[in-house]
């Protein structure tokens, strides 16, 4: 008997048995639907909401001057949502991971507490909280003032007074970002917290010992140390943010229409499934292309780093002889 066979997972057959359910699941609910969606985009639509014959008409219709702006808006807002979520989640996860185990469980548990209430109800509650007479409105005005002042200060925009009457936080992009961050932040905290649990905090002491400030140690040692969690957190927030439509629908007013709203409108209201499919494809492509580029660039960078280090080693070895 070969030694490998001692480990049941190492044998080919067992490997198949173990991974097959996952494959089937992925194929059934992800790969096949994705292909169907892609196929729909090459069909026309019928008046009663069905999918018509093969044609390029859907893609031709997609040349709507509004769409690039909407895609751009979606990407931009998702970016801000992700950024704020991560910026807030990082110290939060760090703090929880450093608590003693009693508090840790209480706090980690309470992060999941909002999920006991329906998502739509919670978003609706925000509608009340963001009412023009509420205190969040005054916070918003303050934020706008500070932002304007800062932009003027760094010379990006000329200083203009805020039009208080027309600047309501409800039905603005800010409301969408705020409530999205609120909704998605548990998905950012959890993976970072899980990674931080495994992080060896004595490394931060080592960094301090070698002369690093607290912030430097956090940035250079803690953040790379929880990188895997950070990547999951980014994906866990960015992906739902891209597809979100309830929040912009309820809080974004007419200013903030995202691709999710458009897809919803095409699919449900106008019953044009091929068009909605094409929009979904468009959005997926506009996310995947930059990610693909980034990965390629990163790979090249790593290869370069490795070459540099190997060259350094070679230099060291040469200098020794």
């Amino acid at each position, binding site marked *: 008997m070969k030694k490998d066979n001692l480990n049941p997972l190492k044998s080919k057959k067992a490997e198949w048995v173990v991974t097959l359910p996952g494959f089937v699941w992925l194929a059934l609910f992800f790969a096949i639907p994705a292909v169907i969606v892609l196929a729909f985009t090459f069909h026309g639509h019928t008046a009663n909401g069905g999918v018509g014959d093969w044609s390029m008409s859907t893609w031709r219709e997609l040349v709507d001057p509004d769409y690039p702006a909407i895609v751009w808006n979606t990407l931009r807002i998702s970016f801000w949502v992700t950024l704020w979520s991560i910026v807030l989640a990082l110290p939060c996860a760090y703090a929880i991971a450093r608590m003693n185990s009693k508090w840790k469980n209480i706090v980690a548990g309470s992060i999941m507490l909002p999920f006991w209430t329906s998502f739509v109800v919670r978003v609706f509650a925000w509608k009340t909280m963001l009412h023009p007479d509420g205190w969040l409105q005054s916070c918003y005005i303050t934020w706008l003032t500070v932002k304007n002042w800062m932009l003027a200060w760094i010379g990006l925009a000329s200083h203009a007074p805020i039009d208080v009457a027309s600047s309501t936080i409800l039905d603005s992009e800010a409301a969408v970002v705020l409530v999205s961050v609120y909704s998605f932040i548990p998905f950012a905290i959890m993976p970072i917290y899980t990674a931080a649990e495994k992080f*060896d905090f004595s490394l931060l*002491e080592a960094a*301090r010992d*070698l002369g690093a400030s607290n912030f430097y140690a956090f940035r250079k040692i803690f953040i790379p140390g929880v990188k895997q969690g950070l990547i999951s957190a980014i994906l866990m927030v960015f992906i739902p943010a891209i597809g979100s439509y309830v929040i912009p629908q309820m809080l974004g007013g007419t200013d903030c229409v995202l691709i999710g709203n458009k897809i919803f409108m095409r699919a449900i209201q106008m019953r044009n499934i091929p068009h909605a499919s094409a929009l979904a494809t468009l959005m997926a492509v506009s996310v995947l292309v930059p990610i693909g580029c980034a990965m390629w660039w990163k790979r090249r960078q790593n290869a370069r780093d490795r070459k540099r280090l190997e060259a350094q080693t070679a230099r060291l070895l040469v200098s020794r002889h």
Partner: protein
Amino acid sequence: MTNDFLVFDHVTKRFGAMTAVNDVSLTVKKGEFFSLLGPSGCGKTTLLRMLGGFERPDSGRIYLEGKDITDLPPNQRRVHTVFQNYALFPTMTIWDNIAFSLKLAKKDPEEIEERVDEILEMIQLSDQAWKYPNQLSGGQKQRVAIARALVDRPLVLLLDEPLAALDLKLRQHMLIELDTIHDQVGITFLYVTHDQGEAMSLSDRIAVINKGTIEQLDGPAKIYEAPANRFVASFIGDTNFFSGEIVSIEGDYCFIQCENFPQIQAFNDKNLKVGQKVDLSVRPEKMRVTPTPPLPEKGAGINVYPSKVNDIVYQGVYTRYWVTSSGCKIHTLRPHSRFLLDQEPITWNDDVFLWWHPDDGYMVEVKED
């Protein structure tokens, strides 16, 4: 004073009701290899962490080069630590790990390169520079941790049981290496260990600590040969204790009467008087067991006691004998060498003679009445 390089001045640290470090004062000289030796939980790490800046003493001050550093944060002290678990940064290569403190100090790239290369050479890991810490062996990680802490030439290097995680052979090898490194760099080493062998072989001076207080501060030989009290005598190496009272004095020697034991003759270096109570410590390797009594010596007599062998433990370098004499259990060693092999063998339940020279006993404690 130039000698007062590093000073702990009446330093106390409590954790809740527990006093981890109790009113410790000590002075370390520049360039010295200084060890803190004591049993587990005696406060060694706490003492080191206060010097590193990770704990604040409840009272007392710490001075380095005459400057009060008690309240400085860790990154503002020119003191680096080699942690027990190495604490190498797993996301950085060996090279970047070592360069960490230099980059922080904003040294220019050429100098950083030069110094990192130099120290990699010293620890003989130049060919591993691009690897990550988890690709190294324990001994290599250890060397990287030392290099990382030494590269920007701190005033003091703190080592917290750096060899504890290594196996015996590697530990012995690293001991020699540490000694060499200390000689090369000339930096003050503050070394924490609970292994007396490590402390003895490396240190210029040793502070023996128990329950947060210093029991003795001396050179290794002094600590072994002239322990300040019962704790030090029993913690450093093995020993046999005889508690008794001085009953008579003859010249430089005195006679001690213990309960249930014949009189013992001992060198009276502390000029004790008749009637005082003492603890006499006799190291096992200074005693002999032989089947026949020893030849009488000139000058002082020898302490000779007929005994029975209870137990024999063969330990390679030597054999350990447990014998009973007048109801006292005493242990002694006999090294294996050609010369001694010629002696008659001793086995269980043999009647033997246990003997030692009066100069080899050391009176460790004078109990005041």
